């Protein structure tokens, strides 16, 4: 018997287990998946928890129940990967593997920023990239009486790069509905050149911040949080005051990657952009947030990667060359508040464009334009996630590579 081991039972790991089990003979291959936690979270839902749009129960399930019954699920901590010996050390046992899939994801590392985990942490400073953080922020927002709200990105890359912007948009709607928008000042702070860094998007979407009266501070690389004066401070001593800071801390790959010496300085694993094979070891494959590929760290990307990686694992096992197929395809709904959303579709090289999706000219979804339909799409996606995506059931008409049908290349970026 041969062993295929998957590390991490999040979105990517779960999909890989469910894709591969029916495709590998049971008398030839064992599949084992390891995760130290019991609960599988629907992470896109963390955006909605703080605003009381989703309840706790809507964003979590028992991880094991989402995985094919013929896959061994081990709920233990992973101590170390030893590629030279094809072994993975768990807290009290060692697994041998023939093929390893690393899907250990990324998580926030607030301790990387001085003063972030200080006296104000979880009092006036919150994250919403963890379940606990999103709930703590919800409790704060229920009571908060207004002031300066600062939505802040520490550094790139982050999981779901548009989530902070969505948070700012939803906050605008939330406070309007509560009749207290005039008491809240919203500032969006980014280390990048703007909220929208791709020319097509800054042209098509610049109006959003203006309409919602959200102030922007760009090119801000945080050095520390001043807990005394309640300000975030950058390396040039630019200071932005806050009453409530919602921050996206530095995102890093799992510590096990660092312990195993497999990652870069943020613990992300150097991975072939198109095959998803690890650059250092040919029988190790990497998927989702754990890779260092320059695609968005997002569930939709993991979903498209999973389809390519499934084929590549089967090719690898049979000794065939791998498909250089993955193109960085991402397809994301972006909540813009007031029950509207945008949809963007892009890859490594093509910027988001106008058009209809998934059917050319018909839609029903609109690319790069706000619509109520897109918002319903985002809400419907939660059902699709639990019932189709994780199970490896193909989502009809949505292909792994970006399609150019129905795309309209009509946006002339502004010349600066």
């Amino acid at each position, binding site marked *: 018997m041969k062993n295929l081991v998957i590390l991490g039972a999040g979105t990517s790991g779960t999909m890989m287990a469910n894709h591969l089990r029916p495709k590998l003979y049971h008398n030839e291959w064992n599949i084992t998946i390891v995760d130290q936690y019991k609960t599988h979270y629907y992470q896109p839902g963390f955006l909605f928890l703080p605003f009381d749009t989703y309840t706790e129960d809507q964003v979590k399930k028992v991880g094991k129940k989402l995985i094919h019954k013929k896959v061994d699920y081990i709920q233990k901590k992973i101590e170390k990967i030893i590629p030279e010996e094809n072994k993975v050390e768990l807290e009290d046992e060692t697994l041998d593997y023939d093929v390893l899939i690393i899907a250990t994801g990324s998580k926030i590392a607030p301790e990387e920023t001085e003063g972030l985990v200080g006296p104000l942490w979880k009092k006036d400073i919150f994250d919403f990239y963890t379940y606990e953080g999103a709930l703590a922020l919800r409790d704060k927002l229920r009571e908060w009486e207004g002031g300066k709200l600062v939505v802040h990105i520490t*550094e*790139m*890359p982050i999981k779901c*790069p*548009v989530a902070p*912007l969505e948070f700012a948009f939803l906050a605008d709607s939330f406070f309007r509905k509560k009749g207290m928008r005039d008491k809240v000042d919203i500032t969006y702070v980014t*280390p*990048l*050149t703007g909220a*929208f*860094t*791709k*020319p097509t*998007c800054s042209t098509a*979407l610049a109006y959003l911040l203006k309409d919602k009266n959200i102030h922007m501070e*760009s*090119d801000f*690389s945080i*050095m520390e949080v001043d807990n005394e004066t309640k300000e975030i401070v950058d*390396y*040039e001593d630019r200071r932005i005051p806050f009453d409530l800071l919602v921050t996206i801390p*530095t995102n890093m790959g799992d510590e096990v990657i660092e312990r195993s010496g497999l990652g*870069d*300085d*943020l613990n992300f694993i150097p991975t072939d*952009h198109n095959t998803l094979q690890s650059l250092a070891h040919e029988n190790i494959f990497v998927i989702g947030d754990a890779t*260092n590929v*320059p695609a*968005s760290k*997002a569930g939709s990307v993991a979903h498209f990667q999973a389809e390519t990686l499934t084929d590549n694992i089967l090719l690898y096992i049979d000794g065939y060359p791998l498909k250089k197929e993955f193109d960085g395809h*991402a397809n*994301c709904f*972006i909540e813009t508040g007031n029950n509207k959303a945008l949809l*963007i579709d*892009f890859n490594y090289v093509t910027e*988001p464009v106008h058009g209809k999706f998934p059917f050319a000219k018909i839609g029903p979804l609109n690319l790069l334009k706000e619509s109520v339909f897109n918002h319903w799409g985002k809400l419907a996606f939660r059902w699709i996630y639990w019932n189709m995506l994780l199970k490896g059931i193909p989502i009809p008409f949505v292909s792994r590579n970006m399609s150019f049908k129905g795309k309209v290349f009509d946006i002339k*970026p*502004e*010349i*600066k």
Partner: protein
Amino acid sequence: MSVKTIAGVEVNVSEEGYLEDMSQWNEEIAKEIAGEIGIELTPKHFEVLNYLREKTAAKEALTIRKVGKSGIVDIKELYKLFPKGPLKFSSKIAGIPKPTSCI
């Protein structure tokens, strides 16, 4: 994309003035782009620029953190060399693509 003459050389640039093909770059081009931004390049600047170009050629994504750990400069020094947006200005001068997010 458009063609622009920088330091006497015709180069392809993006709408925002970033070189489209990093192989068209040379030190004179760097000096001229830096001049437009208001930065006078020193040998230290060139150490950073060469580091950025090496990493880009190796297809590694660049972040301020990464440059800060390069052993060439720390983040404060990087800001001193390229004030008000160290990564975007250094990338522009180094002839590599602009750092972007997904939208």
